[in-house]
């Protein structure tokens, strides 16, 4: 039994990576722009649909790069003409805007591709399982984990080790002071949105072969990603990473002991965390939000 629990824990860490790419982007856009992006799931869905549409021509490796790039471009346009007007305004307006965007995106996907789920398989080279002792892993998911880990590492490097990242972090902490130093945050915000929605699209491509590709897929994953951000704490990079992994593990253990509560477990976890630590696990003290 102990072995089986350990197996669930390890698998849960892997499942946590599902939410990670989406939650990190949500957290970034919110921390820098103050915008709660309800359309983030739509970019995830868009990433998956672009992958399905182009996979015949570009192959899986091709869409793994092309789809996030295309979605990032779309993100740039939306940032320039829509998001930018709402960073400094009442958060409710941003909610309305992105809620509307999400609906438009979902209905557009439904009109163009139909409501039925589209088939998309794991590329044949990546099919199969890896057995480690008594444990079983899907080869595809190991690759998925590697790509997600690489993306997270790259993002961390970008935020912590580059001048770009220093400006973004300064902007998160104190936009007025950053502006007073003569730095305009606008181009940085555009880049942050492009990176964030690109990561969401990457998640869409990676998950498309495992789960169904359908118009409502974005709304499905968005709620869980929000929970991860809230548990992890706003503005905390490692908070989101830890929260995603914890949510994955808790879900795995719940499936083991009481499967009917599997999806509810993350909400219970969120309630517990908020009761004990309202700021979230690693939530930083962000001056302008205090």
């Amino acid at each position, binding site marked *: 039994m102990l072995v089986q629990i350990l197996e669930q824990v390890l698998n849960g860490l892997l499942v946590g990576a599902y939410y990670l790419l989406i939650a990190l982007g949500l957290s970034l856009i919110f921390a820098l722009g103050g915008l*709660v992006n309800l359309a983030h799931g739509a970019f995830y869905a868009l990433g998956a649909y672009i992958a399905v549409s182009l996979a015949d021509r570009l192959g899986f490796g091709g869409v793994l790069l092309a789809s996030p790039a295309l979605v990032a471009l779309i993100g740039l346009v939306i940032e320039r003409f829509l998001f930018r007007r709402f960073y400094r305004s009442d958060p409710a307006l941003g909610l309305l805007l992105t809620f509307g965007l999400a609906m438009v995106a979902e209905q557009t996907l439904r009109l163009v591709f139909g409501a039925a789920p589209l088939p998309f398989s794991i590329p044949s080279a990546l099919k199969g399982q890896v057995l480690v002792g008594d444990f*079983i892993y899907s080869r595809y998911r190991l690759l998925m984990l590697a790509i997600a880990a690489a993306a997270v590492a790259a993002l961390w490097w970008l935020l912590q080790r580059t001048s770009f990242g220093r400006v973004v972090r300064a902007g998160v902490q104190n936009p007025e002071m950053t502006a007073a130093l003569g730095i305009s945050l606008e181009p940085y915000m555009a880049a942050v949105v492009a990176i964030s929605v690109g990561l969401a699209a990457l998640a869409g491509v990676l998950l498309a072969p495992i789960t169904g590709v359908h118009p409502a897929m974005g709304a499905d994953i968005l709620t869980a990603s929000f929970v991860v951000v809230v548990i992890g704490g706003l503005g905390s990079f490692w908070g989101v990473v830890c929260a995603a992994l914890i949510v994955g593990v808790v879900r795995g253990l719940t499936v083991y002991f009481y499967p009917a509560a599997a999806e509810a477990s993350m909400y219970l976890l969120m309630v517990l965390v908020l009761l004990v630590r309202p700021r979230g696990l690693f939530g930083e003290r962000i001056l*302008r939000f205090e």
Partner: protein
Amino acid sequence: MDSAQRVHYNYQREPNAGPKQASTFPEEFMTINRIRRGLLQGGAAATTLGALGFPSISRGQTDAIRLGHLTPRTGFLGPLGEYAVMGVNLAVDEINAAGGVMGRKIELIAEDSVNPQTASTKAQRLIERDKVVAIIGEISSASGLAIAQVAQRNKTIFFNTGCNSDELRGKSCNRYMFHTEAANSMYVNAAGRALLRDGMVKGKKWYSLTADYAFGHDLLRVAKRFMQANGGEFAADELVPTDATDFSAYLLKIRNAKPDLVVSNLAGAQITNFMKQYVEYGLPFPVAGFGFDTAVAWGAGKGNVLGIWPLVWDSQVKTPASQRFTEAFVKKNGKPPENQAWGDYLSTKHLAQAMNEIKSTDSTKVVEHLEKGAKFDLLKTREGYYRNWDHQLMMEMYTLTFKPADQVKTQWDLFTLSAPVPGANESLESIAPTREENNCTMPT
């Protein structure tokens, strides 16, 4: 086919809780709590995304006979609802082209039923305001029950085209509801016969996964009855939340339990996700399921679904009527009909035929006509009839077996279909629930 109704949280802002900007403070002073509340509200709002649909209303001449169609068009069941709408539209086209009902054209009013509350409101409005002569449709058993209650209250006939729960034919039955969709018992008995033939029941250990809501619970009850009556036993039976998309944790448990058969009582997109991941993990145990829709398999793709499943109809049924329907459907919609399209198409045809036969659109007279055992073409080998005591359509079912990926020719051609169940020399009632199993007392 049946599936979950998502819970939709209506987000209403408390008077002072909203993220309204405090007038005397710059926004830097907004509290983190307010921001977090915004995030939480965001999450709640996100869950309502699937709830909003767009009614499509096509109004014609005033002397037309109006027909109401309600089915989920968005959310979890949207993919099936889309086929239902294509089916009912094709039927109305054909009926009108053939002279309509008693010389009058049929005018269709089709809307998204969304959830039980909305379905109930819309059914009431269709009957009161739009004066429809009948309501056709629905896939979710919960919404189906809501519509049935409105239909009974207003003495307006309702054809259930996609709700499977036995309970709708038993405890919740009523005089104005007729079931073109097969009951869970019929699905279980159809697939169960194939399992008995393959020696997968007696002395075998089943591991079942069940969709955790009304439809799944009903199906599990029926499946369990079948298994126990035939000498099988559970290795485990587990409930799966309807919003689960990742099944890896369940697959690890199944692998450790080493069952003789993995049984799916799942619904809709759950089946797509479960089967894709079952194949991904390459588990060696045979698979069977008791609830199925072709769209689910089409959405998984070739080589991603295994095992034995029951089906109410498929375009592979080679009767002339079935082929005519398939050709007309492909011509109009550019893709083959799914079993849900069959249900809504057929119900509309049956209603029009009944009204033409008795020369009346009065629901009570149609009910009496159907209860007398009127025979209908089902696009299958044998004709069928609505059984008078529970209003279930008595008909042949099929089981299907998935082909290996290398034998699949097109994206629509994923499985082979069995001969009809029950066989030609058996009563159609032999796979239907008995009075003892699912008694119905029509309320007066």
